[in-house]
């Protein structure tokens, strides 16, 4: 049951609506049982697009299957909470059975504008206005929404990272070069490219590149351009040639935008864009048993065989090829400068890797960041990290990318200023700062949550809970507290701390640094402070289990008070606050600066007193000889005075007696 309203039938799967990463099941709305719905259950190890879900919820657009509701829900077949997305159930089928199917439903050229182009352009416009991209526009994600096949709409795009399920054919050359988990959200231009490919499929009624594997398809797109690769010698209506040339243009700056599409839809015809091809070299560059005739292709090949690519670049062969065969002296000089700097650099392996990364960017500036086999668009690093961490993969390479500021090399190579790039660059600098700190609340986990603002907390402490927002964390910890078995375990681990650091609206890094203090009382107080602030700001008012958990761990904070009387007082007071379930009050009780200062000064005074007494005892006990001498002297003096006094008294008495 999702949000106490939608029932998902785990015994009624709907495989025809499943996506490669989410299974579909029948969903029912309690308020409107006749409404046809289906639910997609997301894979727990796959980062989903919560921001897209937020933006799409309730949106009514003829070009989009309506996203009715979303949220985490306990899914008994998986035995844990899973993200669930509920969509309006299309009446008809998909236009293409699967992403790799050779055939798809053909849409008549006279209908395609009305049925496909108009609604999909409207959908892309709406998404752009809401600041999101679809990135799952493909023929296999289009549904007939009615029995007559009059309305066609785009399906799910939120249950996997952007463009994760997109076949190579539907992605631009640049996006196609990136690992599918690291393609990034991209821009509306990427969606328009996918729309162009979808139109080709629908006009032809088949997949024109079904016979090609991804590598060959990418190579052909680079060599001949996307339009030529996908359309080739096929005969298409004239009006659509103009549209498709505009949408399938490989230069993102020249590719048609929404305005151009609007003009086309309103009947105004624009001159078709001519494909610009990459400059061919006079002779090929031999690499890994093949010859490459243009920079883009060579860069892609080098990125695939990283270790083999370094020697020819360092030996200057690439520079020579650029200078003589490509006749691009400027680029040759830039490569020569990078190689020279690398030869004079420090750690040869590191410098060589960064050098090759720079050279690949120079050879193909629009390509993704390519580093040791990891190919990612700058905004795709986050989802890549999330996927690798969720699947418990090796994160070393991703950590290296951040620590060695690899994205910066990509941003520096941009010809024009883009505010988004500048923002991402400064974000990556911040991430490097987090990664260099190894304590709780920092490290790769912090980078993970900073880069994926909708990623649920991955902490094992939370069990099966699906926690996306900070306000959900304390209640989840409260629930986990009831089930805990280890009484000494803290209610925080690397993921919880990093999640708090990334999701808190204010800067809590100082508290997180304190959380790593070697003094247990200080680290506990830092944790209590964080929890208290979150409970105070975000609620709920009562967290009895969590309060009991932190109360049981409060011993170091109580022990930080020197006065035993104060300790007894705190130990007496704590259970009352635990029963009230208030971490805020527990924190206020333990963190009373006035009391703490008073305790400290009184303890210092007690220490001084103890030491003074100790000193005096030592002095007294060590002066036995002196005391003996002193006793003899005083004794003799006393005796002498006594003698004199007796003499005087007897004289006086004698005088008095004589006088009387």
């Amino acid at each position, binding site marked *: 049951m999702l949000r106490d309203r939608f029932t998902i039938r785990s015994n009624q799967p709907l495989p025809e609506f499943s996506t490669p990463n989410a299974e579909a099941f029948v969903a029912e709305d309690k308020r409107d049982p006749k409404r046809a719905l289906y639910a997609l259950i997301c894979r727990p190890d796959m980062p989903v697009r919560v921001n897209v879900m937020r933006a799409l919820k309730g949106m009514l657009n003829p070009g989009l299957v309506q996203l009715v509701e979303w949220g985490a829900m306990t899914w008994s077949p998986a035995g844990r909470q899973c993200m669930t997305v509920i969509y309006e159930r299309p009446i008809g089928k998909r236009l293409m059975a699967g992403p790799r199917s050779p055939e798809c439903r053909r849409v008549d050229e006279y209908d395609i504008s009305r049925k496909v182009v108009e609604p999909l352009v409207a959908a892309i416009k709406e998404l752009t206005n809401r600041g999101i991209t679809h990135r799952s526009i493909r023929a296999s994600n289009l549904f007939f929404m009615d029995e007559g096949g009059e309305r066609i709409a785009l399906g799910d795009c939120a249950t996997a990272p952007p463009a994760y399920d997109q076949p190579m054919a539907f992605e631009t050359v640049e996006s196609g070069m990136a690992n599918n988990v690291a393609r990034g959200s991209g821009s509306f231009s990427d969606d328009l490219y996918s729309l162009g490919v979808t139109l080709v499929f629908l006009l032809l009624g088949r997949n024109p590149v079904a016979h090609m594997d991804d590598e060959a398809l990418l190579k052909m797109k680079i060599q001949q351009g996307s339009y030529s690769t996908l359309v080739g010698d096929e005969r298409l209506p004239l009006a659509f040639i103009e549209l498709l040339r505009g949408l399938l243009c490989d230069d993102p700056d020249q590719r048609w935008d929404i305005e151009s599409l609007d003009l086309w839809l309103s009947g105004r015809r624009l001159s078709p864009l001519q494909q610009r091809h990459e400059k061919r070299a006079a002779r090929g560059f031999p690499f890994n048993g093949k010859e490459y005739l243009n920079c883009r292709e060579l860069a892609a090949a080098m990125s695939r065989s990283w270790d083999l690519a370094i020697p020819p670049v360092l030996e200057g062969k690439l520079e020579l090829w650029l200078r003589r065969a490509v006749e691009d002296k400027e680029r040759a000089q830039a490569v020569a400068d990078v190689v020279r700097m690398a030869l004079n650099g420090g750690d040869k392996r590191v410098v060589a890797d960064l050098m090759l990364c720079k050279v690949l960017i120079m050879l193909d500036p629009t390509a993704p960041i390519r580093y040791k086999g990891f190919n990612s668009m700058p905004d795709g690093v986050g989802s890549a990290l999330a996927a690798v961490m969720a699947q418990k993969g090796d994160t070393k390479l991703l950590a290296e990318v951040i620590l060695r500021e690899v994205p910066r090399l990509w941003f520096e190579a941009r010809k024009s200023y883009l505010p988004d790039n500048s923002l991402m660059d400064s974000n990556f600098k911040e991430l490097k700062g987090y990664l260099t700190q190894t304590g709780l609340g920092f490290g790769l986990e912090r980078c993970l949550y900073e880069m994926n603002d909708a990623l649920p907390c991955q902490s094992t402490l939370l069990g099966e809970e699906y926690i996306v927002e900070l306000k959900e964390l304390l209640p989840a910890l409260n629930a986990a507290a009831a089930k805990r078995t280890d009484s000494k375990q803290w209610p925080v681990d690397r993921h919880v701390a990093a999640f708090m650091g990334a999701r808190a609206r204010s800067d809590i890094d100082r508290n997180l640094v304190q959380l790593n203090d070697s003094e247990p009382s200080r680290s506990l107080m830092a944790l209590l402070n964080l929890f208290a602030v979150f409970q105070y700001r975000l609620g709920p008012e009562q967290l009895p289990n969590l309060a009991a958990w932190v109360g049981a761990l409060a011993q170091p904070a109580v022990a930080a008070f020197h006065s035993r009387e104060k300790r007894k007082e705190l130990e007496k007071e704590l259970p009352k606050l635990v029963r009230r379930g208030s971490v805020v009050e527990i924190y206020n009780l333990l963190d009373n600066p006035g009391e703490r200062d008073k305790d400290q000064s009184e*303890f210092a005074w007690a220490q001084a007193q103890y030491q003074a*007494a100790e000193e005096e005892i030592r002095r007294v006990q060590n002066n036995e000889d002196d*005391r003996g001498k002193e006793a003899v002297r005083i*004794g003799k003096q006393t005796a002498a005075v006594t003698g*004199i006094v007796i003499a005087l008294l*007897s004289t006086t008495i004698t005088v008095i007696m004589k006088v009387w």
Partner: protein
Amino acid sequence: MAKKKFQAAPVKKGAAAGGGGMNKAVVLTILAALVPFSLPTVVLLAFTMLPTIGAWASERGNNKYAWLCVGGLNFAGVIPYLFGLWFGVHTLDEAFNLLSEAGVLLWAYGASGIGWLLYTAMPPMVSSWLSFTTDRRVAALKAAQKRLVEDWGDQVVKKGHN
């Protein structure tokens, strides 16, 4: 530096010895001048105060208080007879008569004996008293330390950082 100190000390000691000798000579001269006028007193005192002289002569060290203690009691034993001589017949015969009486010498020497006893007993008594008060002080300090440990824990034993 050491040489200077070594030279300075004898000079100072010599000067002090010279001053003391001069004083003693003056006192002895005055006493000698008085002898013809009070010979009976001198004779009586000379014989009855012998324990005092002995105490003065026998004691060594810096704190020479024995002659004062012994002398005080010795004088207390002699003073009634001395007054008898002064207010009776102040002659040499009377002085010798007194000296020949066993009671006179018994009082004089007995009193000086008590003086010796007092002088001998007093230092151990004072020592015991001092020891008693010291033990009480140490016990009081340890009790205070114990209270501090009870109030503040074992950490209070450590020296403070401030």
